[in-house]
């Protein structure tokens, strides 16, 4: 589904990603861990097409196509979804309007008709239950004045509505209390299908108790310095990152 080869990316004149290789197949869950500032969010944003980052070398192939050649909205329309580490507030645009606009754009890209408001309301009802979100949040402006946890839940709601093929969750667990964590994880798990895949960026093993990864990667200094199975996360929890870093800091 996704093949990243030797990916280098810079912001301004700072090189952040320094040769990432990562392959994700349909049906898989990959966890990306690593110290602060190692480039995890940058990787996620580059996949989503953030204009602040320039890809200086390497390729990203998504479903056989050159992902880097696509505009961000095309990537989303093709099934890529990024749950932001810091979801953006958009005062003046209601959550419901925003979600319906996004949903219809994605349907349009798939050659489907726009959904009528009634059916969309039904869909929303159902998906909001999945993340146990208060329906009142729908009429509020996107993320505006939401608590940290509400913002993260709202990201998962968007994911539940847009049903991506490849979801990248950037620290969706940070700032969630244990109940919210379970709700969010259940949401993610119930959206899992054999034909989609998930990349979870996290600092905490506890999320991985709920969303069980097939692979765990450690990102440090802009490179993947170690990959393994889910037991690698436990090892990191125990030992920290130091033992992996020597070779990484060039």
């Amino acid at each position: 589904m996704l093949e990243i080869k030797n990916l280098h990316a810079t912001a301004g004149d700072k090189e952040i990603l320094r040769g990432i290789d990562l392959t994700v197949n349909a049906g898989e869950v990959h966890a990306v861990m690593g110290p602060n500032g190692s480039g995890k969010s940058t990787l996620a944003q580059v996949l989503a097409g953030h204009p602040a980052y320039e890809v200086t070398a390497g390729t990203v192939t998504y479903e056989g196509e050159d992902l880097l050649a696509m505009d961000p909205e095309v990537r989303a329309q093709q099934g890529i979804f990024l749950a932001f580490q810091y979801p953006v507030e958009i005062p003046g645009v209601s959550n419901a309007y925003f979600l319906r606009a996004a949903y219809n754009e994605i349907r349009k890209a798939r050659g489907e008709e726009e959904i009528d408001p009634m059916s969309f309301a039904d869909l929303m009802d159902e998906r909001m239950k999945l993340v146990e979100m208060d329906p009142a949040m729908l009429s509020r402006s996107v993320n505006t004045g939401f608590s940290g946890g509400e913002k993260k839940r709202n990201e998962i709601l968007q994911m539940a509505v847009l049903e991506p093929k490849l979801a990248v969750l950037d620290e969706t667990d940070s700032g969630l209390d244990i109940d919210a964590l379970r709700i969010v994880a259940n949401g993610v798990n119930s959206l899992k299908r054999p034909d989609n895949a998930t990349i979870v960026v996290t600092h905490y093993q506890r999320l991985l108790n709920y969303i069980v990864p097939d692979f765990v990667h450690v990102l440090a200094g802009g490179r993947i310095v170690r990959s393994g199975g889910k037991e690698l996360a436990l090892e990191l929890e125990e030992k920290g990152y130091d033992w992996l870093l020597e070779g990484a800091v060039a």
Partner: protein
Amino acid sequence: MIESYLKGFEQLASNGGSAAPDWARSLRLSAITRFEALGFPTTKNEDWHFTSVAPIAEREFDLLAPPAHRVTAAQLEPLTFGATDWHTLVFVNGRYDASLSSTKGLPDGVTLVPLTRAYEELPLLVEQYLGKVAAYEGQTFTALNTAFLDDGAVLHVGREVEVARPIHLLFVSDPSAGAGTSQPHNLIVLDRSAKATVIESYAGLGDGAYFTNVVTEVVVGDGATLTHLKLQRESAQAYHVGTVDVRQARDSHLVQFSFATGAALSRTNIYTELRGEGCGATLNGLYLGDGEQHIDHQTRIEHVEPNCYSREHYKGILDGSAHGVFNGKVFVHPAAQKTDGKQTNNTLLLSEKAQIDTKPQLEIFADDVKCTHGATVGRLDETSLFYMKSRGIDARTARELLTYAFAADVLETIEQVEVREALEAATLQRYTEH
């Protein structure tokens, strides 16, 4: 040019100016004297630093003649918010038009009449307040307006009376019989614990370089609440100067919104004086400009007494070569301890040539106060644009939505639902393709 107004004044004075009492005649006389002495302000005047009124000052304006054809109710329909049961006074080219107006269903204790009738029905009230709330001594345009005091709306809401339905004062200009000026003068008085919503609309029914110069004097009594909306949607070549001057008594509330989108050159002054304890004033506004438009707002909040709050949020979207001005003055007098004031001005520039001069002006003479202000000028937020695109929304739709949202953020503070929805719809349409 000053001379043309002096001539016009002579004419109005000699034909009696529709049966005004003596005190009104002498008020006019002293106002024209002031006007002559003041002359038009130049950009050297601090209050007019960013706005040149030369286009107005250099033209000759007679009083607007009645339109070539009678204005019909159908023509007003786009301006009446689909409401059929509001209390409405309509003025055409500055003249009250009874056939287009309706005041039926007004509760007892409420008087809503044109100024000419107010001289008979509310003689003491008009004598007490006219020309007293909006000081003309230092203000050219207020002096000019007061010199031509002849027509306008007078509203009096008695003690503890609540007017449930909105009161709409609709001023339309139809320059079909030649450009000219109208100088409406309004008076709104709410007695103790009264409550009302007043909408002042200014709109053009045809293009022409006409000039509206309006003054509205407002008195909000003890514990009274006035919601006041001023909507400036004049024709593209028109000039508009509008002053709303409010005096608030103890525990009174003013909720004011100024929407300005029309006219080649416009200046809106919103002034309020919080003269008693426990008052609140909310002054919000939205200006939308394009082409060569010049849109100026000046607000002034005088905190005279302690324990009052003021909230002010003005936003603007400027495109083309439009020039916006926002000058927000907040004065906290020495006695006004525990004043809580907040002022914000945000302007979105959609083009390289659009510009805004924003000048917050806080002058605080009390020591125990909480006053903040902030202004931003910018383009659409790239992070928000990316966030929307990352959800599949194409770049153009994202821009349109964000532009609309910028305006909607302040439009949604309008509580009057018909006006809010109409302005939201018009703004959405203006900034989106569909």
